[in-house]
């Protein structure tokens, strides 16, 4: 489709920094979005959470930017900013009125090149406290909040970088020294390990000159070695039961599957949608709507750079039984594997994907991030159409085959039940 075909310039500076420029003059805003090829996959056991903790340190000022001023300068310009870390990468992004582009390039280049002189023990101690609170707020103090880390911990082998949570374990977070943080910076935070995307309302020539001016003289460093990924191969089913302070029982099922953009990645996305993505989705309709055995259900494919897994999560109604839910889920998977799905179901998923692509084009910040996403995983930022084609090509046979190939294998099962309730 024409509107999904984005024009862009992509080039590399001498120091290895990748630059993507996409002009979009709908609104007087510009978004700057940087992906560093550093995520929690680059950590090792016993030293988890440093990629994310490091993301926090990037907001603490740099050589020419005093503490707290990174936020202040951008908010004073009417901008918004944030960053996020996952298994594969860390991103930093800002959206500002377009006349403040230079401010952002100054701030981003200062912390890309000149963060270390301003790092102090005091800042590190403070952000370790903040991250510990973040972990409490988002995981430990949330109902079922530790399920994700339990699942990946059991699904992926012990030395697989997806086997620990990106936020890290508390003991590891507490252990970090200034030296650890500085070493992490030196290894991963270099122009040659990053991609800078600018999307929105700007003059290409001026933006190019500003990028040169601020990033051109930053020092390159050695590209970090590729990490070695052990294969994921569950020898048997792993069943875990937990008692927690929750009202309702919940079951999680996780199967190892494929990494992002592998042949069945899109079929597994559709499978998730067909099972639980709408009111008429098979498991939702059967278990939540018709039989009222479940309060909610979701099925989805998670895929990253190094691996992926397919997950189904269902919460039982009060008095309901997790074993019954599990039986129903497996019966439906068997059904899909034998008879496949209807053309209407595939058509529904395709149209949902297509329209959500178009709706997402409204926000220049999500555009910039998506360009970086495609560049990171596919090597080509303008992949909206190619990605859509990937989904449009999914057939009924593909969906049957992805079930046969992955969802008949061994799996991890986690059951969480109320600490004061009865066993199922």
């Amino acid at each position, binding site marked *: 489709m024409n509107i999904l075909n984005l024009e862009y310039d992509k080039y590399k500076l001498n120091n290895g920094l990748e630059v993507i420029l996409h002009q979009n003059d709908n*609104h*007087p*805003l510009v978004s700057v979005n940087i992906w560093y090829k550093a995520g929690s996959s680059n950590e090792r056991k016993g030293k988890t959470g440093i990629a994310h903790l490091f993301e926090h340190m990037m907001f603490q000022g740099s050589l*020419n930017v005093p503490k*707290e001023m990174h936020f*202040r*300068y951008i*908010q*004073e*310009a*009417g*901008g918004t900013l944030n960053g996020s870390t996952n298994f594969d990468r860390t991103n930093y992004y800002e*959206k500002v*009125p*377009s*006349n*403040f582009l*230079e*401010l952002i*390039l*100054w701030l981003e280049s*200062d912390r890309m090149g000149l963060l270390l002189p301003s790092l102090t023990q005091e800042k590190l*101690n*403070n*952000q370790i*406290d*903040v991250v*510990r*609170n*973040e972990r*409490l*707020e*988002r995981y430990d*103090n*949330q*109902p079922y909040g530790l399920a994700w880390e339990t699942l990946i911990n059991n699904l992926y082998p012990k030395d697989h970088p997806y086997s620990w949570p990106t936020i890290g374990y508390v003991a590891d977070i507490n252990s970090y020294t200034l030296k650890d943080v500085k070493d992490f910076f030196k290894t991963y935070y270099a122009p040659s390990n990053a991609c800078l995307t600018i999307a929105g309302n700007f003059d290409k020539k001026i933006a190019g000159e500003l990028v040169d*001016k*601020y990033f051109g003289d930053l020092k390159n460093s050695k590209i970090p070695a590729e990490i070695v990924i052990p294969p994921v191969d569950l020898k048997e089913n792993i069943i875990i039961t937990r008692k927690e*302070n*929750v*009202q309702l029982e919940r079951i999680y099922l996780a199967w190892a599957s494929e990494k992002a953009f592998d042949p069945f990645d899109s079929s597994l996305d559709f499978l998730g949608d067909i099972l639980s993505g*709408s*009111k*008429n989705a098979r498991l939702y309709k059967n278990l*939540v*709507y018709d039989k*009222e055995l479940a*309060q909610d259900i979701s099925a989805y494919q998670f895929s990253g750079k190094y691996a992926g897994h397919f997950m189904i999560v269902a919460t039982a*109604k*009060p008095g309901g039984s997790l074993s019954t839910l599990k039986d129903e889920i497996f019966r439906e998977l068997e059904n899909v594997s034998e008879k496949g799905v209807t053309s209407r179901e595939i*058509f*529904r998923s395709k*149209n*949902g994907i297509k*329209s959500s692509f*178009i709706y997402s*084009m*409204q*926000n*220049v910040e999500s555009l910039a991030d998506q360009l970086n996403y495609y560049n990171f995983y596919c090597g080509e930022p303008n992949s909206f159409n190619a990605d859509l084609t990937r989904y449009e090509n999914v057939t009924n046979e593909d969906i049957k085959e992805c079930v046969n190939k992955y969802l008949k294998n061994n799996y991890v099962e986690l059951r969480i039940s109320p600490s004061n309730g009865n066993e199922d």
Partner: protein
Amino acid sequence: MKKSERSKMPLPSSELKFTLPDVDTFKLANALDVIFVKRNSLPILRLNLIINGGSNTDPVGKKGLANLFSMMIDEGAGGYNGLELMDEFDILGSNFDISCNNDGLYLGLRTLKENADRSIDLFSKIITDPHFDEISFAREKRKLITRLMQLKDDPEEIASSVFEYTVFGKEDPYAFTAMGKEEDISNITVEDIKNFYRNYFVPNNAALIAVGNITKEELTDKLNKYLHKWAPKILNIDKYKCKTKESPGIYIIHKDESVQSEIRIGHLSEKRDKRDIFPSTLLNNILGGQFSSRINLNLREDKGYTYGAFSRFNYFKDNAIFYVSTSAGIENTGKAVAEIIKELNLIKEGVTEKELDFAKSSTIRKFPSNFETNRQVAYNLTTKYLYNLPDDYYDTYIDKIRNVSINEVNKAALDHIHPEKLTILIVGDKNKLIPQLKEISKDKITELDYLGKEVSVI
């Protein structure tokens, strides 16, 4: 580049050119107000229907009615059952959504331009011809009761809902969350749902906001075609009767062995149309409205007690509250509460010119980005409609902010921040909380259950 060049913050390149979207307001033959903004940059369209009357209309003994109504309205309409109806939307790649809060019901439609006609047809069926059948009603009711039960697991939800219940004084219409009370839900009948539809769901008690790629003629034709059956009525709606009764004090809700506490601190405030909205906006921006505000810089970036701490004036249509919210490691809760109270006292001593300049600059310069997506434009028009803001509200917004004086902000702090009558509510392990709270205050501590009922006084 030279080191000296990098040491200076770059200045903005030029003044920004930003023009607000043109808003066209008109009435359909059935008295429905239509607020329309044409935006052609993408082939998409959004419609939002606002119904005046949300959970603030719930009768005593039937708290949760409006929300249950919102769960029922898309469970079958105009010849389709609930499943068929959603399938029709999904097959088009259109999204229908509905939400309910204290002041209203909000029906939303997002569609591609090529499917606008069919989508508006379906959207209109929900508005004009919902079924409200008994079987769906029983199912949605069971779903809601289970949902209410699940909320007991969520400390943030418990803190917010019991805080509002306590500050509004247990009887005011705003004392209850939209989801209502478990014990009331079973009293609600399908007849109540139908009555709600008859009383509130009428075109002269609603507004339709349309933003996107369509001409006014096309839009009007479609709305007339599909909504003509929807007839106006003489409204018989009770006015809000204020029953607020504040009982400031310290309240805790026990959550066994919790590693973190949820904190809400605040009081009643003045409703939006009776106040100095622009000075109040800037005041809150300085105090706790964003990352760089006093409260967050103190509690997060200086002390490390929390992942984030914020304050806000929460304006309902007919009332308002002010509160600070955060969560803190259980062992730092007493200190975090003390710091928040300190900040509330401190702001009354006045803000600095520098702080005010910062607040103005961030508010003014951020303004254009509030109109980027169709959803944002529709949201702003909803706010304007709901609070009955003047027609030139957005046109004059930047000037009004720019002209606020430091005296006005300082007066707003004196008028609207009341550290002497705070309701302090904390969800966490009482055994760890009580000693810390005793250290910062000699006041009695009241323990509440997760519904806000008193358990004991400590």
